[in-house]
Structure formats: structure tokens, C-alpha cells
């Protein structure tokens, strides 16, 4: 088990290293950043000074090593746009992203799983067809469009909820609903299919024959066994939600890491982009690592893969 965990961790670090190279290369290939740092009327002398100051006069591999060496110590440089340390800036936005993702995740679980159970225990009923149809169409809707349509209905037309911002809990409702949208459909479909499988097993039939009430059979006997694929998927999904939040934050002006990142890309504020990407990737990889470890604990067969 220890070997398995160490292997997964090494792997996570390797992935993180690759992300750091990709993001570094991305920001350098896309153009010379010197001209963002100096004024329009800068002299040759000023440009040269800036280049030395930011280490831009060195060879690219050297620049990467310096960047990586500092990044490991938590120093991502100073944001070009805001003039504060990039990592600090990103970390100050992180709570917003976490709140949004977790609320979306909770919503998806609370709505998707019960819907799936209901659909599975009443197969081919109106509930089943309704939920399955909703899930199919729901999964076909792009997240950013769902967000805009929710804004259109609940903010513009009905005026019940604010369009964007983050001043109160009401501001959280629409972005969280958008983030959870795809996951509700995914949880529903997965719960339904694993419940149908579980309900068809001999021990469930036996529990029924023993005279247990139907809700006990469904919720206790079947759900417990349908739960294992759900746990795995829930973990994977939390990571995906984090990624999805990037787009949703931009629509609702929700001041999270994703919105910061998109704005920073637009402004070519490369220290901020690098910090934002690496922080997001670290969270994503950590969550996957935790899921892998948890799964290894639950199912010994996985460890030996």
C-alpha cells in the first residue's frame, strides 16, 4: 500500500512538473513580454535594464530553471497588472473558487443521486423517463450557455437574483447551479445504472423475499452496493468541477482563480497566469491523488496494477 501511494505521489509531482513546463513555454512562446513592462517611448537603455532585471536576457532553459527554483519556494514573481506578488493574488482568490466548486458539488450530489435512485427504483415510469431525458439533454448543454440562460431567466426576466458579483449569498446561487448542471446529469445517470444493476442481484431479491419494506431494500441493500462506482466518480468529478469553474467564473464575474486567470491571459500578465495555472493544477492533482489512495484502500485489487 505504501508503495502504491508513493508511486501515485511521484506521478502527481511529475505531472505538476510537466504543467510548469507547459505554462512556462506557453507564456514565452506567445511573444516578448519586455514590451509589456516598459513604456511606449522607452529607450534602448531602459529596455536593456528591464530585461536584466526580470532575467529576460538569459537563455530560455536558464529562465525556466530560475522560474522553477523560485516557484518551488512559493515565489512566482510580481503581477504585472496588479503589482502584488502573484501567488498571494491567486491565493486570495482561491477561497471563492473553492466555495463555488464545493457548493456546486454538493448541489449535484443532493439532486443527482436521489433522482437516480428514484429513476432506478421506478423504471420506465414517468419519473424515470423525465429524469433520463433531462440528463441526456442536460449533458448536451454547454456550461457557459446554461449560465447565460439562467441569468436571462432569473436575473433579467424575473429579477430574483443578481446577474454577477459576489457580495452576498444570493450571488452564489446562479454560478453554483451552473457549475453543478453537468454533474447533476452525470450523477443521475451513473446512480441510475449502478442502482439498476444492484437491484437485479440475488441478495436484493432475497432481502425482498425476507419481507423487508421496499424503501429499506432500495436504500439499505441496493444503494450500499451501488455506492462504490459513485464514490470514484464523485472524486473525479470534484476535479472536473474545479476546471469547469474557470468558465463559469468569467460569466458571473465571480472573483475566483479562473476569472483571474482568463483576465491575466488577456493582459499577458504572465506571473499571474503561471501562478494561477500551477495552483489550479496542484489542487486538481491532489484531489485525484486523494481519490486514488481512497480507492486503493477500498479495493485492494487496484494497488497491484
Amino acid at each position, binding site marked *: 500500500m505504501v508503495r502504491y501511494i508513493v508511486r501515485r505521489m511521484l*506521478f*502527481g509531482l*511529475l*505531472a505538476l512538473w*510537466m*504543467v510548469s513546463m*507547459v*505554462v512556462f*513555454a*506557453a*507564456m514565452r*512562446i*506567445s511573444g516578448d513580454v519586455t514590451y509589456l513592462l516598459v513604456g511606449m517611448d522607452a529607450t534602448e537603455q531602459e529596455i536593456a535594464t528591464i530585461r536584466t532585471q526580470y532575467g529576460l536576457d538569459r537563455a530560455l532553459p536558464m529562465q525556466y530553471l530560475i522560474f522553477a527554483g523560485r516557484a518551488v519556494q512559493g515565489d512566482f514573481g510580481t503581477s504585472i497588472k496588479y503589482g502584488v506578488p502573484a501567488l498571494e493574488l491567486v491565493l486570495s482568490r482561491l477561497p471563492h473558487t473553492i466555495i463555488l466548486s464545493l457548493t456546486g458539488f454538493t448541489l449535484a450530489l443532493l439532486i443527482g443521486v436521489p433522482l437516480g435512485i428514484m429513476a432506478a427504483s421506478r*423504471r420506465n415510469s414517468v419519473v424515470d423517463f423525465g429524469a433520463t431525458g433531462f440528463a*441526456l*439533454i442536460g*449533458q*448536451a*448543454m*454547454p*456550461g*457557459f*450557455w446554461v449560465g*447565460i*440562460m439562467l*441569468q*436571462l431567466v432569473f436575473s*433579467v*426576466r424575473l429579477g430574483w437574483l443578481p446577474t454577477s458579483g459576489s457580495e452576498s449569498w444570493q450571488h452564489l446561487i446562479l454560478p453554483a447551479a451552473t457549475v453543478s448542471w453537468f454533474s447533476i446529469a452525470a450523477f443521475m445517470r*451513473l446512480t441510475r*445504472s*449502478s442502482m*439498476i*444493476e444492484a437491484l*437485479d442481484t440475488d441478495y436484493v431479491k432475497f432481502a425482498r423475499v425476507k419481507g423487508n419494506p421496499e424503501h429499506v431494500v432500495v436504500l439499505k441493500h441496493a444503494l450500499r452496493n451501488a455506492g462504490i*462506482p459513485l464514490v470514484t466518480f464523485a472524486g473525479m468529478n470534484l*476535479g*472536473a468541477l*474545479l*476546471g*469547469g469553474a*474557470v*468558465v463559469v467564473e*468569467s*460569466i458571473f464575474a465571480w472573483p475566483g482563480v479562473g476569472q483571474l*486567470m*482568463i483576465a491575466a*491571459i*488577456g493582459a499577458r500578465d504572465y506571473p499571474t*497566469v503561471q501562478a494561477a*495555472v500551477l495552483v*489550479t*493544477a496542484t489542487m*486538481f*492533482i491532489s484531489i*485525484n491523488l486523494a481519490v486514488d489512495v481512497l480507492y486503493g484502500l477500498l479495493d485492494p485489487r487496484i494497488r497491484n496494477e
Partner: protein
Amino acid sequence: MSESHSLARPHVHGSIIEIIPVPDDAPLSRAPRRRRVGRVMALALILLLPVLLFGLFGPWMLLHDPAAISPAHALRPPVFAGGTWIFPLGTDHTGRDMLSRLVDGARNSLMVAFFGVALAGTIGTAVGLLAGYFRGATEEVLMRLVDMQLAIPPILLAVLLAAVIGGGLLTVIVTLAVTFWPTYARVVRAETLIQMQQDYVALARVAGASRWRIMRVHILPNVLSVLVVVATLQLGAAVGLEAALTFLGLGMQPPASAWGLMISDGKLYMSQAWWIPAIPGIAIVITVLGANLLGDSLRDRLDPRLRQL
């Protein structure tokens, strides 16, 4: 002699594939099940047909010039919301005809999705074949690369790539390819491992076929059906991702007609004109739903083991 491994050749189902079969249906007898799969496929084709027609013959189907700005006709509602047949789906804030832009945008969306998925499929298939055929160090390196890429959130990768190469048709195609290739690599590798154990591969080897020939002529045709299923399912995802990138300003650039672009334009005017953001979104939903249903039914018909995809 060896050209005969066609698509129809039944697969031998091994246990190497790490895909968990999730039975989605009660034990129906085969006939009603097949009929149902057929119905789903018909529905998928009905949904996709107009989109395909627009994509292929769009330039000959336009009512108006999709780029023609005419302030006098700005913000006209669609015909079912009190508009006229001159602009069946209304106009946008600059007076451009929504229907013409929708039809014109279909070509861009489909082209990007198709070439993106095709490029991803080519790279992924090559990697999967090589990993599955050579095993050992080759496999280890290639598959770890796949794992590593899957550890990066796709949207992050897409956003970064698009930021580097700058917006445009080609950018989105490359981004889609980079984002989607690992899935093919995994599936094709698993399938190659199964095929490698078949007698025909051993026989071809005995007959003196080269490694390249075995991979190309013997194994590739047998992994095709899996490829078709994965590609169809990814087509839907590709249309969605393309629209999202374009919406964020990282994909197709104005004045091109693209569905994502129409939505981001429309967002600003939604209090006066709900149809500008709503209608292109409905087009996306129809396309993605059609591709997903088609993929589902192809999977059920060709290879039920792939349920999890």
C-alpha cells in the same frame, strides 16, 4: 489474403480492458433491444441532419449575407416571437440575420470539431498501437505521458494553448487534438493488446509479415469499430469545447460566424433580445445531443463493452 479482417469481424472479448461494464438495461431479449438502439440512432440522425446540411451546403442556403450589417434592421425578434419571415430567427444588435449566421456558423463548428477529433484520433491511435504492439519501455513511456496529460484539467490546457497560438480556426483544431488524443491512446492500446493474442496475428508473423504491416493491415482494421464509437462520442464534446473557447475569446475571432461568438455577442444584449444568446445555444444542444445519441447507439451496436465512455 490478409485484407479480409473487416469491420464485421466479431471481437473476442478479453478481460484486459479496464472498462467496467455497466448494464444500463434490464435483460431484454435481443430483438426489442436492437429495435430500441435503431430508434435512438434514427433520432440522432434526425437531430444531426439539418446541422450536417447547413455545414455542407451552408453557402447555398443563406437568406442574407451573414456578415452584412444593417442598423435599420437591428434587434428584430424571430418570427415566432412577433417577427417577420424576412428574418425568420430575428436579427442581432448590428442587424445581421440570425438564421444566416447560424447556418454559416454550422460549417465552422463542424469543421473544427471534425478535424480536431480526426487529428486527435490519428495521434492517439498511433500512440495506442505502438504502445500495445511493442509493450515494454515504449509502452511505459507513452502511457505515462497519457496519464500525465489526463492529470491536467482539459479546459486549463485548452485555455493555455489557445492563449499561446492566438485565436482562430487552426488554434481550436490543435487545441481539441491535444485535449482529446489520450482517450484514443488508452482505448486503442487496450484493444491492441486483445488483438495481439489472436491467432491471426501469430499466423501473420509466421508468414513473415513485417511489424509495420501487422499493425497497419491486421490490427488497425480490428480496432476501427472502437475508434468510430469514441470519435462520435467526442464529436459532441468537441462542438461544446469549441463554443466555450470561442465564447472566452480564445477561439474563432470576429467577424467570423461561430456559435460561441454569437452567444458572447448576445450576452450583452440579452435584456432587449433574448434570442441572440438563446438560439445559437439551442443549435449547440441539438448538435451535441445528436452526436451523443449517435455515439451511444453505435457503441451499443458495435461494442457494448465501452459503456463507460
